[in-house]
Each structure stands twice: as structure tokens, then as C-alpha cells.
């Protein structure tokens, strides 16, 4: 059975009396260990979809099954738990706490994960070393480059050993070389650490290289769906 399954997923934002449809009848499956990419134009609903999977937002209609649990049936605190332990998220704009250094940003996730204080520091250090930032532990986001910030964000996303990594345009703010390094880290996590990766990107070319499955979105709908064999 698939790790993630959506059936007829829809999301409509309500602004006063105006309904803004962001997603409509989205149905797909993601298997455990897959590298899954979502491509499409700006405003096509990619982030909305990712946020639904990540439990940051709730769907208006349809079903979304994550690891055999129905996200739409979860309470708010269960969703918080889902965000804490089941998924890790990274963003185009990194979303690190500016006033905290690399270690502290990772530790914040460990605090919410209930990791005891005495092993938090070591765990955060290990995670940052894993993404190649072992020598920049006490630097704040302002003192780090974009690529380095994204590495901190990845380390933080991995803090509570999630099943799935959700990346919303992780290379959107980076130059092509740095982008390549970040993609490489995601690929390594997927291939060697069996992490399921769901990535939103504009870059179809890269997506075609790394992905097992790609969906193309337009106006909140899936317009094309490619699998590994087709990609290759």
C-alpha cells in the first residue's frame, strides 16, 4: 500500500464571499522511499498541496491518507503531532529563526520533539555535521550563505526522524551550483537513508533526473503524471 494517497483532494480559500479555488480533484499515490516531484507554474497550487500533506493546512474536500491515517480526521493537536514526527519541511526562504544560531534552530525542533536536554546538543551537532555544517554551528542565519541556511533547515527537518521530507522550492533562492548541492543532499537522503522526498520545483529538468514520479499542475489540477520509467 502507498505511503501517501490522495483522492479527489480539493482546497478552496474563502475570502469574504469570494471563493478562491487553489486545488481541485487531486488524486495520486506516493510509495515509501520515492522521490516525488511537483512541478507547475506559479499559483498552480503546488505549495497548497504540500501544506496539506504536511498538515499545515486542511483540505476542503477529498481524502488524504498518510501512513494509513486520514489527515482530515485528525484533531489540531494530532496534526501538530503529524508535523512534529511524521514529516519534515523545508522552504524556499529557509524559515530559520533569525535570532538563533544553527545549533539552536535545530535544537528548537528537538525541544518540540521532546528530546531530553542532555542529548539535544549532541544530536543537533550530529545533524549539522551530516549536512556539512560541522564547523558553522554557532553562526546565525545572517552569518550564513543561502545554501548553508538551507542545510540548517534540512538538519532541522530531519531532527525528529520523519518518514517524509517536504521541500517547497528548496533551491528557489539559490544559484545553480548551490542548488545542485542541495538537490544532492536530498537525493542522498532519499537513496541512502530511505527517506521519502516530496519536492516542489519549477525546474522540470532537475526533477526529471532525480524523481521517481512527477506530477505537473495547472490551475489547481494535475495535468500530467510521469513515473520513473517514463522519466528515463
Amino acid at each position, binding site marked *: 500500500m502507498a505511503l501517501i494517497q490522495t483522492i479527489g483532494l480539493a482546497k478552496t480559500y474563502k475570502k469574504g464571499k469570494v471563493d478562491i479555488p487553489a486545488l481541485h480533484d487531486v488524486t495520486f499515490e506516493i510509495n515509501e522511499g520515492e522521490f516525488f516531484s511537483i512541478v507547475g507554474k506559479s499559483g498552480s497550487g503546488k505549495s497548497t498541496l504540500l501544506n496539506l500533506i504536511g498538515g*499545515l493546512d486542511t483540505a476542503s474536500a477529498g481524502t488524504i491518507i498518510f501512513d494509513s491515517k486520514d489527515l482530515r480526521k485528525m484533531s*489540531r493537536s494530532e496534526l501538530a503531532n503529524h508535523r512534529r514526527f511524521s514529516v519534515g519541511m523545508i*522552504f*524556499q*526562504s529557509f524559515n530559520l529563526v533569525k535570532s538563533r544560531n544553527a545549533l539552536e534552530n535545530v535544537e528548537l525542533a528537538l525541544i518540540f520533539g521532546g528530546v531530553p536536554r542532555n542529548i539535544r546538543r549532541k544530536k543537533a551537532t550530529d545533524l549539522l555535521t551530516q549536512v556539512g555544517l560541522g564547523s558553522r554551528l554557532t553562526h546565525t542565519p545572517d552569518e550564513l550563505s543561502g545554501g548553508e541556511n538551507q542545510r540548517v533547515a534540512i538538519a532541522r527537518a530531519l*531532527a525528529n526522524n520523519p518518514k517524509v521530507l517536504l521541500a517547497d522550492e528548496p533551491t528557489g533562492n539559490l544559484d545553480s551550483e548551490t542548488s545542485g548541492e542541495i538537490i544532492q543532499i536530498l537525493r542522498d537522503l532519499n537513496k541512502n537513508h530511505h527517506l521519502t522526498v516530496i519536492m516542489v520545483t519549477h525546474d522540470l529538468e532537475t526533477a526529471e533526473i532525480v524523481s521517481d514520479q512527477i506530477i505537473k499542475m495547472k490551475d489547481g489540477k494535475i495535468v500530467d503524471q510521469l513515473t520513473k520509467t517514463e522519466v528515463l
Partner: protein
Amino acid sequence: MNFTDMIILAFSNLWRTKLRTLLTTLGVVIGIGALTSMVSFGTGMQKNVTDAFKNNDLFTSITVTSKKVNLDEIATGNVGQMAEALKSEGKPLTDSVLEAIRAIPGVELAYPNLEFAARIKLLGDSASLNVAAMPGAIRQYKPFNDLLAGAFFTSDTSRSVVIREETLSSRLKIKLLKKGGEVTLTHSDSVTGVKLMHPDSLIGKTISLVTMSVNKSKIPMALLGMMRKNPEMPFDETITEVKICGILKRQGEFGRGVFNGNLIIPLKTAEAIPKLGFSSVWDLLDQKKKEGAYGSIHVRLSDMKRMNEVKKALEEMEVGVFTISDQLAEIKRAFLILDSLLGAIGAIALIVAGLGIINTMVMSILERTREIGIMKAIGGSENEIKMIFFVEAAVIGFIGAIFGLVLGWIVTKIATFVMNTQFLPSGEDPINLFYFPVWLILGAIAFSLLISLAAALYPATRAARIDPVKALRHD
């Protein structure tokens, strides 16, 4: 997320905006400082008064007068009532009344009130002062049960007297050496001839009591003398030699005046001394006092619990009954009002500080919207986000309360110091105007926490409701 982590997180968040945290906390410090110093003044006054009551065993004391006087009516300025009371014929307090009072169950002691003025000579110094007569049996009651030196007289006929420490220092230029306490003579002391003495060395010293009495046979001569411009007063001087048997401890400022008399003399001895004038202020109420009747009678109970029973029996005897314990209820009510008023002023200061906390928290939430979004994205639940803000507010409230208490304490110390050095006549024991009971300290901390948590209620709820999707949208 456990509680220690929450505290650590709160501290690190507050530390990031040091100045703002400091100013907000300062508001609480001032609020709590105002509240505690105000309330501690109220409780201090109350403690001084009730302590004075306790130290003088006033709860076992009743004063009986010849007439029923409604002191409340007089206190409220009901002049008509007062005049009525003065005019009316009272029940003369004769020896048979005294005996009847003594027979009431629960009455331990009843003795007529007898005070008179006298000049005394002690160790070469002389002074005019007020002498009060008491039975030896009064020694079982405070403050007569615990003397500074010597012992209270036991016989009502002995020629022994008890002198107050204040009388020695203020009237007779004698300072007492005390155990532990440093007493030295100042320069002005030595100029005015103040002596430093050990209390025990005064015991057994002789006092000459000089009293005046009217000699009726001399009155015609006196009138003649006035016409011849060489007046001779129609008075006889009597000198009575008595010995000091004990020294009464200094009374606090608030215990002063409860019992008059600089010198306490045995009742029967006093009655035998020829003297002038009225015996007490209660006599003023009864100008038509009968010969052989007393102005007022002091009654002491065996137990304060028997107060009502004895009062009832006395009222049935148609005499005036005055108890200070009745007044205490009134005094307590007055203090309650005073305390509430002072407390309200302090509470207003604290509520203003609470508004400061709300302002700071709302500002902080606006600034930290993205951070809150991040915390939610990495798994922070609404309750945890809420708790973080509550803990931040509680930290401000708690630290503010602690330093506020310190501030309040400093203020009261300064006020006490100024009061004792500037307004209190020298030689008096220092007065403590303020009192910090444990309930006030704990109450101040609890109240501060309550106000700060209430202040955090809206900001914390607002923070918990922040939509992470909106908060995290890239700028």
C-alpha cells in the same frame, strides 16, 4: 516539551529583547512595590495597635463607671446625649458595689481607679509626675508580669513602688544599662547630668513622694494672707518614703497611655496617703460624686472568654461598662477599610503594569509572527505556543514581584528611618510603621502572577491562532 524547556525558552526569548523586557518588568516592580508598601503600612498600623492591646492584656480588662455612657454616641458627636449623660444621676460606686463586682463569676480582680499627682525625689533629682494605685494582684497581667528588673509588689499595703523605664529616662535623667543593647551617654547627656545606671542597682532605692492636701483649718488664714499680700497656701505637704521594687519595661508608642501613671503604688498605701483632687478622668463624668464613692473601677477577668458573661452581669447592675475589646472590632473594621484603600491604590499600579505586559506581548507577537509559524511548522501545538507566552508573562510577573517586594521593603525601611530620625522625639524606642507578614509576600507574588497571566491571555491565544501557512509565506 517539558516545563523546564518552556522556562528556558521563555528566558531566551525575553533575553533577546532585553530593554523591552526590562521596562515591562520595571512596571511590575513599581506596581508590586507600591502595593506591598501600601498594604504593609496598613498591616503595620494594625499590628502595632493589636500588639499594644495584647501586651497590655486589654482583652481581660473592663472599666466600670457610675453611669451608662454610650461612648459611640459621644464619639459621633451627639452632644445632647453627652450632656444628658453628664447631668443624669449615676449609681454611686461604693464599696458595696465593688464587693458585688468582685463576686461576679469570672471576675478575677476589681479595684478602684486611683491616680494622683505628686512630686518625687530620687537620687537627688526631683520630678512632678502622676502616681497610679493598683492592687498587688495585677502582677499576673501583662505588662506587669514581666518587669525589666525587680518584682511587682505583692502586698497592697507595702511601701514599694514600680517605676516605668520611660519615667526614669524622660523625667529623672537616668539611662538604663541593658543586656546586649549598647547604651552610652552622649555629649548632651553628660552636660545635662544624665546618669547611666544598671537596672538592678535601682531596686531598693528610696523615693520620697511629696503630696499636697488641703488643710481646711488653714483656709481662713490663707484668705487673710491674700488680703495682706503675704499669702500662705492652705495646703499641707506630706512626704511618704517608698522603695523601688521593680522597673516596668518600656511600652511601645502604641501601648502608651493605656495605663496612666509614671509610678505604680500599692492600692492601700495610696489610699492612706493624704492627697488632692480627683482621682481619675472618669470623675469628670460625675461632678456630683458622692463622698465614699469611687470614680471608676477597673475589672480584670480570669479569662477573656468570660467577657460577655461578665459584661452582662455588670450591665444588670446598672453601671456603665466600657471595654476596649468592643472598640477593637470597630478599629479592625476601620483598618480593613484602610487596607482596602491602600491595596486598591497599589492594585491600580499593578493593573497599569498589566497593560504594559499586554502591550509588550502583542508587540512581540507581531514581530515574531514568522517565528511562531516556524514553531508550528516544526510541530509546536497550539497549547505549547500558548504556554510559551504564558510562561514569558509569568517570568516577567515573578521577577517583577520579587524585585517589587525588594523595592517595597526598601521604601518602608527609608520611611521608617525618616520617621524615627526626623519625627520621633529622641530617647523613644523606634517605631516600626510597616509590617511584611508572610501572607503579604506570598500574596504579592500570587497577585503579580495572576495579573501577568491575565495580561497574557489575549496575546497568547492570538499567538496560538496564527496561521502557519500565512506566517511562512515567503516575503
